[in-house]
């Protein structure tokens, strides 16, 4: 089944709220070889003016993952996960993610394009805080390979 072009513009229900834990930020920081004390040490983060440790720039992928799972599980999407290759990724921040944030991610399928037998699906996960203010938008382009 090819990727359903009618996915374009579809907005999914918000994913369940995600509470950013200090130890999760530290674990993720170590996994991406972060050495900044602002990622790892609450005292250093506070001294720099943050409420708690600051997440690395790519941390939002943890929240985005849950929204992409919604997309792949959509019955009429026609996206075969075994044929998906991650093409592009972008994070655009209004403010950094800090431990203690409660964040909610909402996925919109920005575009579905055909390119030489493949489909390119651009998925935008808009992530807001508990007050509804924008924190970061994570945008992924997924390349879904066509039949060989």
């Amino acid at each position, binding site marked *: 089944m090819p990727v359903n072009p009618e996915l374009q513009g579809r907005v999914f229900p918000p994913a369940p709220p995600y509470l950013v834990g200090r130890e999760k930020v530290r674990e993720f920081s170590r996994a*991406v070889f972060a050495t900044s004390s602002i990622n790892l040490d609450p005292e250093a983060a506070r001294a720099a003016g943050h409420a708690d440790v600051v997440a690395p720039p790519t941390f939002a*992928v943890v929240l985005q993952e849950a929204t992409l799972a919604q997309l792949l599980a959509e019955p009429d999407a026609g996206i075969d996960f075994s044929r998906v290759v991650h093409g*592009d990724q972008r994070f655009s921040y209004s403010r950094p993610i800090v431990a203690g944030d409660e964040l909610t991610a909402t996925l919109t399928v920005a575009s579905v394009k055909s390119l030489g037998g493949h489909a390119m699906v651009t998925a935008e996960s808009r992530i807001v805080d508990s007050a509804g203010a924008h924190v970061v938008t994570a945008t992924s382009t997924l390349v879904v390979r066509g039949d060989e």
Partner: protein
Amino acid sequence: MTPAPALDTLSVGDVVAGGSYPLTRDSLVRYAGASGDFNPIHYRDDVAVSVGLPGVLAHGMLTMGLGVQPVVDWAGDPARIVDYQVRFTRPVPVDPSDGAVVTVVAKVGAIDADAGIARIDLTVTFNGQTVLGKAQARVSLV
């Protein structure tokens, strides 16, 4: 707060940061756990080979995640990275015994003095070949 590098001291083309990251299979398992990405092509050779890959690959998001770290250290605060994008152009196979070394060079790509933002362009390589395209971090230096 660590002072930010002054925008007016930068010129397009300046190399501002870089680093070398030896990845092992342990690094991939650690990233899988931290990120929640448990795709077995990142830890099982048999699965990787069965889908036509040379062997276990590093997560693209791990390469993206470590690629920006020299810029974070240069900027002095991870909060100064306001936008970061990459294109995944080549995989990074991680040998079970020898691992893989990923190298990052960060250069000033553009300066927006009005917005107080420097665009830092990353060259991320493995085995002498770039593995990320259009890898750009926008850093707020106001």
